């Protein structure tokens, strides 16, 4: 039975567009804050994961690539990735890296360091990204944040694509920090002691 397509089933287009725009003008990276705040606000205010369940374009993108484009091997994830300590550990690691990124932005803001026109992949590899930014367009820290935030978005997409290929299409959703965080918020909100 075919399911009815809703408007939000097309949000993957925005997710794809976001990644593409970063190659042309890094400042678009700021828009990514939306996929940071919207899920958090929904879970805090409504106490549900409708962001993951309905609106998340990234999840849809993985699903499309994996199912429609048949790029996924559809294998089960190794158990350790599904474990609580890995999911919570990855969330903690992600948050630490996020705050380091904020701190780097602060250093540029305060003048202690210069703007680095690079995108860091997998928290390690610095890729020159000066083609997507004309020096002096905006205050340096605004550009620094854009580079930093886009690094996070591209890195998580990369990880997601790798696990999409080797495991189930939306394997990323198992260890996605936003998904883990919103689930935790929902648990806290429901006041349940369920594991």
């Amino acid at each position, binding site marked *: 039975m075919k399911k009815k397509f809703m408007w939000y089933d097309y949000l993957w287009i925005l997710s794809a567009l976001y990644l593409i725009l970063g190659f042309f003008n890094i400042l678009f990276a700021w828009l990514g804050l939306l996929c940071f705040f919207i899920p958090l606000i929904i879970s805090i205010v409504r106490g549900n994961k409708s962001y993951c*369940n309905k609106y998340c374009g990234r999840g849809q993108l993985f*699903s499309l690539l994996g199912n429609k484009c048949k790029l996924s091997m559809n294998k089960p994830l190794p158990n350790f990735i599904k474990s609580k300590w890995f*999911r919570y550990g990855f969330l903690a690691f992600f948050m630490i890296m996020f705050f380091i990124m904020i701190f780097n932005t602060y250093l540029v803001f305060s003048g202690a360091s210069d703007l680095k026109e690079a995108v860091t992949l997998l928290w390690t590899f610095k890729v020159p990204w000066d083609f997507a930014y004309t020096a002096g367009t905006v205050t340096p820290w605004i550009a620094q944040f854009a580079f930093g935030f886009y690094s996070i978005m591209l890195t998580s997409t990369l990880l997601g694509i790798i696990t999409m290929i080797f495991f189930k299409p939306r394997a990323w*959703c*198992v260890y996605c920090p936003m998904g883990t965080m919103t689930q935790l918020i*929902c648990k806290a909100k429901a006041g*349940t002691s369920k594991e």
Partner: protein
Amino acid sequence: MPKRKAFINKNICVACGCCLKVCPKNAIEIFKGIYAQTHDDKCVGCGLCAKSCPADAIELTKN
């Protein structure tokens, strides 16, 4: 005759909603954003949800 039904392990479920999207009978809902729940009366045991679940939290059981 025993019928197959989807059974969701709440402890593994990440509440992503993949199962929700594929269930042809709308037999699944996400309980308060914490885990997925099936409605046994609606579930026809097709197994689509289990196939889509990235956390492999769904099993089909006979009851």
